[in-house]
């Protein structure tokens, strides 16, 4: 599996010459990239202009002046710090626990042989592929049934509580992570854990001190991906949290729309602020992001 990622590049036989074909290729690629970036750049441009400017001259015009006022306004009116905090409370625990639980399952099925190994792995993989809507109605009802102490959730049930959203993220996302991690762990030589066992290491030590450190690269890749996915979640929070004040930032966008009515510049600024964390993660950890997706799709 890793072999596909790190194969030495095929030697280039031809010398690089500037041929018309190459020029055409680069022109095409540059145009495609610009078109891909256009919606984002357009949003940036709109967000930097004032409402007065665009309402008089229209959006398709040269800006009279550029300003960051919209960002400041969106930050305050949209109460973004509050919603970022809600997201943080959901994303970080969900991310950590998902990786922990899936690495346990992956360790179990890849290191030990049971009759139901494959079945277990299939259960998790299939679970992750289900459309969320298949689960959502009974889940919503189930959450109303599960009682939790009031210091965890003011509603007394898992509805309207970050804990509820965290739990479904863990349950749902562990499917993908288990699949990827178990594939990776199978590439670790069995002799390693066997030697550790002969030396008297307990199962937990084989997992925690031997296998997990070896999985660091793939854990990093999964963490990057899962951060983006959990951060971007819209549906779970929309259904399971009915108190608008407790929504994570992605679902709270819906509230911002009402607040901002027709001021598209403000909406653009708000959208970009909400996109910012994932964009930063993408730019800083692009290799992990791409690697994680590749690992999840191909094997062997």
């Amino acid at each position, binding site marked *: 599996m890793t*072999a596909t*990622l790190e194969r*030495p590049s095929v030697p280039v036989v031809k010398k690089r010459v500037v041929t018309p074909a190459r020029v055409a290729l680069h022109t095409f690629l540059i145009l495609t990239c610009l078109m891909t970036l256009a919606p984002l750049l357009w949003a940036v441009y709109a967000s930097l202009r004032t409402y007065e400017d665009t309402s008089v001259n229209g959006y398709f015009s040269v800006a009279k002046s550029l300003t960051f006022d919209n960002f400041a306004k969106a930050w305050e009116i949209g109460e973004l710090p509050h919603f970022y905090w809600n997201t943080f409370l959901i994303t970080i625990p969900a991310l950590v626990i998902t990786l922990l639980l899936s690495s346990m399952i992956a360790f179990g099925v890849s290191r030990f042989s049971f009759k139901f190994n494959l079945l277990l792995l299939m259960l998790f993989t299939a679970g992750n592929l289900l459309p969320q809507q298949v689960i959502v109605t009974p889940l919503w009802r189930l959450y109303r049934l599960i009682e939790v102490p009031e210091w965890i959730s003011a509603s007394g049930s898992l509805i309207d509580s970050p804990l509820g959203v965290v739990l479904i993220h863990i349950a749902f996302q562990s499917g993908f992570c288990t699949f990827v991690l178990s594939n990776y762990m199978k590439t670790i030589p069995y002799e390693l854990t066997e030697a550790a066992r002969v030396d008297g290491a307990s199962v937990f030590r084989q997992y925690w001190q031997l296998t997990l450190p070896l999985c660091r690269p793939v854990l990093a890749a999964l963490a990057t991906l899962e951060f983006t996915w959990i951060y971007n979640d819209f549906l779970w929070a929309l259904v399971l949290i009915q108190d608008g004040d407790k929504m994570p930032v992605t679902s709270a966008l819906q509230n911002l729309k009402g607040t901002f009515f027709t001021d598209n510049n403000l909406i653009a600024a708000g959208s970009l602020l909400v996109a910012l964390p994932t964009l930063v993660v993408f730019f800083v950890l692009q290799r992990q992001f791409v690697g994680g997706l590749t690992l999840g799709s191909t094997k062997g």
Partner: protein
Amino acid sequence: MTALQEKPKAVAPQGSPPRRRRGPRATALAGTDKLVLGLMLGIPTFVHVLFVWIPTLGSVALSFSRWNGIGGFEDIEWIGVGNYVEIFTEYPRFWPAVQHNLIWLVFLLIVPTCAGLLLAVLLDREIKGSRIYQSALYMPMVLSLALVGFIWQLIYTPDGGLLNSVLGLTDNPVDWIGDSDINLYAVLVAAAWRHTGYIMLLYLAGLKSVDPALKEAAALDGASATQTFFRVTFPVMKPVNIVVLVVTVIEALRAFDIVYVINKGRNGLELLSVLVTDNIIGEASRIGRGSAVAVILLTISLGFIITYLYQVFSKENRT
């Protein structure tokens, strides 16, 4: 260019899988180890089954009932296949939703797949700035579909939106999102914008895993680049094609955020997923009917999920 001298390393082991003398062994474990292992497997499985598979079965069960979801379980009235009959014959939003989901699927299968494949083929060679191109093309992938909806609304708004201005339709603006004849396609372009990068990524990985020797052999036999691609490379990438197919189908069935953000999935943007969620967060909660729609979604997706599982795990059975 030192790369010229570099021979592809390790030609021999490439073809044959790494030797594996011993698979995982069933070994006698000490008592505590058994317990620890049991917990390590048991806890995650419990969480996953409780919150994913039990609700799935719940949807199936509830699809045969009439229930408002608020009262206790004793209020559930079992009505057999009544919900399904009603959905297929009377429910006015069902068939448009099916149609929209189908259009969604076909569109995603054609546009982003072709675009992603083409870009992957173009980028899967030594060209300057390949990484920069890739970064730009991947970028929409990290945005949530909800955000994509917001960002594209700036392009589609009738008054002063980018699209109408570029097309010179400012005097006679087209309402890309409000017009129920075209809004589905407008939204699909936005969805495809985000999906293309993912498909490109999958195909790039697939192309890298194709043995270069195959292409060389085809070239030696006098095949043109196009022939080599369609007759050799593309068929060899069958596993990737299946993954692309499954990913796209699932994506099409899940589609929800973007239409919900734009107009809550009404007026030309009805989707099956919207019909399900409307019963919980919408005005009328008819749990039974919503669950029946969910089961229809489940049935369609199961076919593809099983295909995927077969594709991915059949290798395992052979070893």
